[in-house]
């Protein structure tokens, strides 16, 4: 079965420190991978995606993610965390099977708290 795992329910980091939010996946074929962020009482916002090419993807607000095919991971990173980065982060993956009903598979989310 295809799945996405975000192994940490919560991540706590100090402001200015690097942050990592983990995501691993299990899908057939070559996946499309996405990260979204959700601020309190808001809808999800797209951060970045990996489709093909360079394994290191850069996105909004200084975030980046590295696609690692051998480890089936797509961890979200930022070199220096801000208090304003505190939010809920979702990883999502789409398999590339042929057909009309390919839909995103969502992780359960990781709550990031950046402490001043």
């Amino acid at each position, binding site marked *: 079965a295809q799945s996405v795992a975000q192994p940490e329910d919560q991540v706590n980091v100090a402001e200015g420190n690097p942050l990592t939010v983990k995501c691993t996946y299990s899908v057939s074929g070559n996946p*499309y991978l996405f990260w979204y962020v959700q601020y309190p009482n808001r*809808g999800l916002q*797209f951060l970045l995606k990996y489709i093909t090419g360079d394994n290191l993807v850069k996105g909004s607000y200084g975030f980046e993610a590295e696609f690692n095919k051998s480890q089936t991971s797509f961890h979200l990173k930022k070199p220096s965390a801000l208090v304003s980065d505190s939010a809920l982060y979702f990883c999502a993956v789409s398999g590339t099977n042929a057909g009309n009903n*390919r*839909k*995103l598979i969502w992780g*359960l989310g990781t709550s990031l708290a950046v402490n001043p």
Partner: protein
Amino acid sequence: IAGITQAPTSQILAAGRRMTLRCTQDMRHNAMYWYRQDLGLGLRLIHYSNTAGTTGKGEVPDGYSVSRANTDDFPLTLASAVPSQTSVYFCASSARQGGSYNEQFFGPGTRLTVL
């Protein structure tokens, strides 16, 4: 400003009542989606539409129906609300059908409480 609007923002509803959640996008996206978000369960797809005139069932479709009469609108109807449908509902759209390489854009959500 282009985007997705949802209405109402929040609603308290008596069990057994009928309710329609509205969703409108002005980005001319082909695909639209309805999700519910529940604590500990993440986002679950209720229904989707790859293009105007077509709809499909997602992961948790029971008790919900949708229609897609045109590109812009994708209403979600609860025919007879039950307390287990208490949730936050998000509408989303993307430039192509589900599962493609295009990201989804989300509305602000509707917080629904069924008593």
